[in-house]
């Protein structure tokens, strides 16, 4: 059976390019990330943001000798672990991580050969960066990233340079190393449930901008707190990673994504059951991770397999993942719960009715709804969280609906639409191929009665207490992690019961209990840690 890799973080660097399917849309995004204009790519979990960043990195590195543009990939996935006494320390941690990655990247590419005051500054002082010893900046980073073990600890941030000193150092370094510019690729850049961290990130993003530095980032659709200095349109180009399900060759492109990882058995099943695969591809609504998960469950891709998977995944699992956000971030509970109820009980029911009615009409179908621009803020927030989970996909901003009113159009993930059908494989392709963004559009106006419940219960200040939320999450069982069942079972058998257990485990502990080799144990640890970080990130 094919063991799919769902997350780019679990991929070895040399496999990144082999899994990339070079479609025109994704090419446009990769080229933008390689360009001079700062770019922010926006997409739900699992749409492939990290892969695009890594592909841009690989392509820039491949042409570095010629173009002298050096990519520096910086993941902020550990931001969920930062639990220090001052909010400013989050900015300091980001700067430390950027410096650390930059020095590492220069070393890895053979650009650090002699002592230099700039490198000394970026590594927190001294010349340890020339030897194998960890420079001061690494020690500060470790202190930050282990602050979850000792909440509210005050980390000594003295070795970390400020933004201006860092930019000066970069300028001088580029001059002396004949580097045209640096391209920072920030992954997991803005924690969707921590508006304060979002504001701080975008301030750093804005402040770093100069002739020698291009900043790019990948963020979730729910990211909206940009802070005072960052202007989303002026300071960066925002590009969506969503894939258009109405493109003529949509299914073929999704097939290529699966094919890159499929073994011969699965490839044969796809060949034999091309239409059933097409239904699953549409059900995933452009999200490769959802497609890989559902395909791996559908075994032989028979109609029965596919129907069962669509019902299981899109009626239960996708909603369970969304509802889990409420238990992780209690401040968002009302928004999460209302969003689910709204889409499940109202939107989906109405879409099903309209598709049945449209059946006898002109063959046009729908998965779209529209929300008035001036609907309550809590409604927009709830819909944004649904977009973060991948249940809905923003399909158009500032769209005119009835009476010339302006609002945003959303698509409900087609899998959720199919899952209400008695036989998704029978009608799935018909629904997907007949989609019209206009015909059958459900319109929710400025003060639709469905909003009432949310407006009444919504608490204005819903920013969660992150410290207590983190402590609670670390105590959770590893069952909540998005890991293959075999890996979860092996970790449990080896005695790792909670998220905290995994974060605390060393490679050696995993190896000694799991009877695996060094390389394999690193992979197991890495996959488990990535799942933990993703869970903590929301």
């Amino acid at each position: 059976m094919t063991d799919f890799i769902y997350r780019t973080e679990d991929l070895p660097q040399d496999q990144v390019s082999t899994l990339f399917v070079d479609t025109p849309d994704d090419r446009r995004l990769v080229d933008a990330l390689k360009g001079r204009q700062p770019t922010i790519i926006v997409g739900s979990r699992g749409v492939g943001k990290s892969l695009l960043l890594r592909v841009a990195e690989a392509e820039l590195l491949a042409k570095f000798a010629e173009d002298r543009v050096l990519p520096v990939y910086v993941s902020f996935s550990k931001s969920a672990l930062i639990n220090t006494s001052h909010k400013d320390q989050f900015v300091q941690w980001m700067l430390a991580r950027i410096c650390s990655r930059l020095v590492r990247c220069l070393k890895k590419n053979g650009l650090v050969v002699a002592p230099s005051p700039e490198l000394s500054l970026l590594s927190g002082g001294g010349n340890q960066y020339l030897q194998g010893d960890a420079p001061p900046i690494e020690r500060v980073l470790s202190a930050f990233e282990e602050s979850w073990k000792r909440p509210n600890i005050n980390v000594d941030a003295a070795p970390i340079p400020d933004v201006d000193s860092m930019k000066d150092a970069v300028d001088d370094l580029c001059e002396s190393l004949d580097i045209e510019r640096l391209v920072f690729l920030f992954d997991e850049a803005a924690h969707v449930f921590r508006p304060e961290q979002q504001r701080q990130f975008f301030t750093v993003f804005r402040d770093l901008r100069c002739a020698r530095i291009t900043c790019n980032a990948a963020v979730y659709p729910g990211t909206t707190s940009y802070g005072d200095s960052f202007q989303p349109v002026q300071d960066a180009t925002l590009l969506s990673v969503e894939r258009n399900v109405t493109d003529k060759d949509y299914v073929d492109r999704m097939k290529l994504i699966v094919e890159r990882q499929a073994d011969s058995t699965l490839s044969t099943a796809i060949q034999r059951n091309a239409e059933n695969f097409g239904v699953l591809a549409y059900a995933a609504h452009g999200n490769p991770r959802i497609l890989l998960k559902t395909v791996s469950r559908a075994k032989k891709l028979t109609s029965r397999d596919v129907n069962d998977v669509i019902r299981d995944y899109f009626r239960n699992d996708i909603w369970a993942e969304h509802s889990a956000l409420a238990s992780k971030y209690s401040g968002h509970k009302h928004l999460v719960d209302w969003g689910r109820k709204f889409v499940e009980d109202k939107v989906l029911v109405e879409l099903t009715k309209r598709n049945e009615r449209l059946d006898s009409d002109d063959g046009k179908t729908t998965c779209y709804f529209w929300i008035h621009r001036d609907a309550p803020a809590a409604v927009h927030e709830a819909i944004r969280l649904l977009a973060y989970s991948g249940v809905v996909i923003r399909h158009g901003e500032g769209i005119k609906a009835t009476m010339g009113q302006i609002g945003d159009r959303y698509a409900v993930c087609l899998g959720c639409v199919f899952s209400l059908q008695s036989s998704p494989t029978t009608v799935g392709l018909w629904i997907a191929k007949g989609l019209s963004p206009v015909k059958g559009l459900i319109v929710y106006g400025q003060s639709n009665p469905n909003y009432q419940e949310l407006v009444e219960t919504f608490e204005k200040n819903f920013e969660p207490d992150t410290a207590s939320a983190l402590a609670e999450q670390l105590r959770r069982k590893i069952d909540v992690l998005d890991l293959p069942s075999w890996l979860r079972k092996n970790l449990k058998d080896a005695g790792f019961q909670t998220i905290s257990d995994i974060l605390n485990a060393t490679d050696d502990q995993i190896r000694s209990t799991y009877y695996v080799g060094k390389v394999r144990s690193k992979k197991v640890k890495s996959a488990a840690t990535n799942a933990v970080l993703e869970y903590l990130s929301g």
Partner: protein
Amino acid sequence: MTQSVGAVDHLAHLHKQLGAVLAASAEGEREEQLRKAQGVVADLDVWLGVLRTRGEGRPLSTAFREYASALLLAAMGLYGPAFYGLRHFMEVSLGSVLLSSNELSLRLWNVGSHDLHWSVTVDDQHGVFSNVFVRAFCEPMVPSALQLGNVAKKVYRECSEFVHGNPPTTARLPSTIEFSGQLLDQWLVHADSANMVVQSALTIRYLMSLPSSEVHALDATVRDNLGHNSAIREFLDRHHEGQLP
């Protein structure tokens, strides 16, 4: 003399063990799977009946025999050689199909002056599933060709792991003659994929160029194996209804 009797006894003992594995292989649901795999031999015979007199008939006959032998080996628990055989079946079948389009190379191959190279056989630009080859012989199959080529490469690579003696793969092979449900199942799914690839290649190369009587002879075989492909179904239906010459 005593030694030779001992050797024969030993071989007879092994033969008995092979028989025991064969019986274990046919237990439960696997009997149906084995029957299906055996059915492929009959389908290949139908193709051979049509292609026997052509220049590529002899190598195709050898390749198809290899499939039958590999099935027997897999059922008897000789899993390593069974995977080699499957690879050989694919390599020679697809190679024959490709060379059938180049008479000079085919003739040279038949007299031992030309070698098959797998990378050439499945080359994306000029191989048996390349756009140019499929477009020339069976245009309706063009949309499926790329994926068929991918399946071929994957099955070949997965069988090759047994041929090259990769330690993680060969460690799974039993050191004595014994039944392994896992390996037999793996062989059966690979055989199923290999069969689909070979039947597809034969269909692409010949179906639309054969005289009506031969298409008629192949109708059931092609429908059984490639009935999932609507273009092929449609061709056979039109042929059946007399809309094609």
